[in-house]
């Protein structure tokens, strides 16, 4: 069972209250982008075994999107943060570095 704290409601939301939105922090390609860049944006995903950043929506709660940092292998959750974030908060990044010294960084 996966529990993510919704940063808006402040409650521990069960996975079944949430809708998964795939990888977070994707750069959206637009007019003028190359075909290869569009392909990357539309289809290519990290899908890592380990530290991952994801979009989730509190579908049965406040209805808002938020972002989560977690380990796809152990299901350990490092933290959640608002969807309006361009990158993970420093505190979450530091926590991951501490717990996963071999982690290569979020970008």
């Amino acid at each position, binding site marked *: 069972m996966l529990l993510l704290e919704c940063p*808006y*409601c*402040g*409650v*521990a*939301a*069960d996975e*079944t*209250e949430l809708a998964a939105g795939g990888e977070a922090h994707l750069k959206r390609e637009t007019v003028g982008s190359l075909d290869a860049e569009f392909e990357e944006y539309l289809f290519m995903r990290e899908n890592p075994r380990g530290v991952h950043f994801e979009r989730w929506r509190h579908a*049965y*709660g*406040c*209805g*808002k999107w938020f972002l989560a940092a977690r380990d796809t292998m152990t299901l350990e959750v490092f933290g959640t943060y608002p969807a309006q974030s361009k990158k993970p908060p420093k505190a979450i990044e530091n926590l991951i570095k501490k717990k996963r010294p071999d982690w290569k960084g979020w970008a």
Partner: protein
Amino acid sequence: MSEPQTALQGATAQGFVTVSEDGLHGMISLRGDLNDPKLKAAVAKLTGAEVPAAGRISWKGDRGVAWMSPDELLVIGPYSSAGKDALVLSKALKGVHHLVANVSDARAVFRIEGAGFREVLAKLTPADVSMDAFGIGQIRRSRFAQVAGACWMLEEGSARVVCFRSVAGYIFGLLEHAARSGSEVGYF
């Protein structure tokens, strides 16, 4: 003129707690910037209750205000005046970016009364309804089995469950079944 009816006409069931369909509620969905002074004032003037903090519900007399999301409140009051109340809110919020909708006829409300009410809720929702996480003045939106719903608590020993009117029969069935005598879990 036909009389407004609740979805299940006040159905009740007696188990280790009492489950009963509550009467009609006036419910107004209000969206906007919850920190806007004009919005706060309009809500306070209509209900007498404060705009609640995240996850909370405030109540005064026969009116209440529930926090639904960072930009949404549920304004609760008498069913008979909901249409008028929605207009009052709209007028008071003129010039402020907002949305007001009278959703009274889209809802059903249930009372779960008795010492074991947390047991009944916990059988149906993944939300934490333990004493530490769910107490007086709190509202929790979640799901009950397969449908969306919310529960709130205004007094010791009971909770309300609100859902869409279209699933009132389903929710009542769930609650009645979860409350059957002999099915107590004794967790809380």
